[in-house]
């Protein structure tokens, strides 16, 4: 079985790093500085071992067989669901639906709620800071229903400008308010309290994209007051292919299914099919079983370290990175101060395209993201086509940020 994490209460990134086999290699002859965790995190041995263990000892399809292995597999999957419930502080495990990732979770809500509840003229409100995953499904479904998509704009500091909310409520019936908790592009930790309260005053549902928040801070869906919360396992040390949607029972029960087929039914007759109970109604087909087990183990890993310790570590790294990056000539840094951001720093070097920056950094062993980060509305607002983004996680060490800064000086030499 998986062993306990190398470090426990106090976050020691140098020690935790040894749990991650990926760092045992060099990249282009240099130590690997992996600064793209916001896109997807690396995987600890404990999580990988939990998946192996499941495949090697307990693998069979869940919820069907009456034999021992099937029961073991079902118990493992349901244990993972319970771990996710506790992680989110959700009231009930039946409200936790396993999906592939946050994108699928948000599409589930857009289709299974939006398609049936939006009327022509209704408003769906998202923000300029959204990842395409919480933007495109709403734009698409609103369009199908003749509803209107409205954007909460950003101010000049890259923070949500809520001054137009009253005007929006006069414009039409607001049915959905959807926003992220942490911006994947700027790292901004959004103060969503007011948006939650405003959404509920309008009788709207509040849909929270927590894909970027879940890896980095303690989540509590009840304290948040949201109606739906989406998370991706692969960003929080879990495997790719498993994420979760949490939703309020009363909403989930009234909703039509998203995907139909096996497992999600109560009874199937030639003339009529009835839907299964929660959460099965929303889990058609064979679940990502081993992936869910891996996600449960990832939650164990994160909680043993402590989400508070992870958040503090990231604030520290963000502050260090912002300070060091200021030394680089011609740099523009985007986003809020370190204390209001997760471990994400977006920047541009004057006159040098992010693709070129990232390519030259790669040759120095530094992996960053260059592009629009699935946030084209935000890039448009910033007046750029793309940015560079360095992002940090529990295993990130200051030496990697030093390597980034040295690499940026090398970029300048190439384009001098």
């Amino acid at each position, binding site marked *: 079985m998986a062993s306990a994490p190398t470090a426990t209460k106090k976050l020691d990134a140098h020690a935790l790093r040894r749990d991650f086999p990926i760092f045992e290699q060099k990249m282009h002859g240099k130590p690997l500085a992996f600064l793209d965790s916001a896109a997807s995190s690396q995987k600890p041995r404990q999580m990988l071992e939990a998946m192996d263990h499941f495949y090697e000892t307990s693998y069979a399809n869940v919820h069907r067989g009456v034999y021992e292995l099937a029961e073991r597999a079902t118990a493992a999957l349901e244990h993972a669901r319970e771990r996710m419930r506790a992680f989110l502080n959700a009231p009930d495990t039946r409200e936790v639906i396993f999906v592939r990732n946050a994108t699928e979770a948000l599409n589930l809500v857009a289709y299974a709620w939006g398609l049936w509840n939006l009327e022509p003229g209704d408003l769906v409100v998202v923000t300029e800071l959204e990842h395409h995953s919480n933007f495109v499904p709403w734009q698409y479904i609103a369009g199908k229903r003749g509803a209107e998509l409205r954007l909460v704009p950003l101010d000049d500091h890259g923070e949500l400008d809520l001054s137009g909310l009253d005007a929006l409520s006069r414009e039409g019936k607001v049915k959905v308010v959807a926003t992220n908790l942490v911006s994947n592009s700027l790292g901004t930790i959004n103060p969503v309290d007011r948006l939650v309260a405003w959404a509920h005053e309008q009788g709207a549902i509040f849909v929270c994209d927590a894909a970027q928040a879940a890896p980095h801070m303690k989540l509590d869906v009840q304290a948040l007051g949201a109606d739906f919360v989406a998370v991706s396992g692969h960003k929080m040390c879990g495997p790719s292919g498993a994420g979760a949607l949490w939703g309020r029972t009363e909403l989930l029960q009234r909703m039509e299914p998203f995907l139909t087929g096996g497992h999600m039914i109560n009874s199937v007759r030639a003339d009529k099919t009835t839907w299964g109970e929660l959460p099965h109604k929303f889990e058609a087909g064979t679940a990502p079983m081993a992936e869910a087990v891996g996600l449960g183990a990832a939650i164990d890993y994160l909680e043993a370290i402590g989400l508070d310790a992870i958040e503090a570590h990231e604030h520290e790294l963000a502050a260090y990175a912002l300070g060091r990056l200021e030394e680089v000539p011609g740099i523009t840094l985007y986003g809020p101060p370190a204390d209001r951001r997760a471990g994400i720093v977006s920047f541009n070097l004057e006159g040098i*395209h*992010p*693709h070129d920056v990232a*390519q*030259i950094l790669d040759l120095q062993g530094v992996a960053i993201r260059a592009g629009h980060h699935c946030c084209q509305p935000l890039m448009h607002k910033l007046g750029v*086509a793309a940015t560079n983004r360095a992002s940090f996680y529990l295993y990130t060490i200051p030496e990697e940020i030093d390597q980034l800064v040295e690499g940026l000086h090398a970029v300048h030499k*190439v384009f001098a």
Partner: protein
Amino acid sequence: MSDPAMESLYREVILDHYKNPRGHGVIEGADAEAEGQNPLCGDEVSIYVAFDDDGETIEDVKFSGRGCAISQAATSMLMEMTKGRTAQQVAALDKDELLAEIGVPLTPVRLKCAMLGLTTLKVALHKAKGTPLPDGLAGFDDLELS
């Protein structure tokens, strides 16, 4: 630069075309034009073509937009390569001819950067002259390519 890999990718001729792009600008009242985007990185390029009196030979071709060194240098090289050719010849221009001009090995992601200009130019010619669309866009005739 001491790193051989870096020296290879960002060799002098690429940086020269990037810093001093040939044919950079806009042709007002162009005979053919199109706008292209690389959805991976958000790079944008617009291409403008003016034909000779024969209506076939490219008298002038210019580009505007923003992008990385590879996309901008490749488009700049393309401007030099295609001026004086006919629309048909450019529509049939093989990507390997442009890649040979670029002369450095490209990863799949950077290949898309390098091909942005050529693809956009072929779309512009398709719209104006009905020449074949580039590989991968064939069959998209009904789409509004602008």
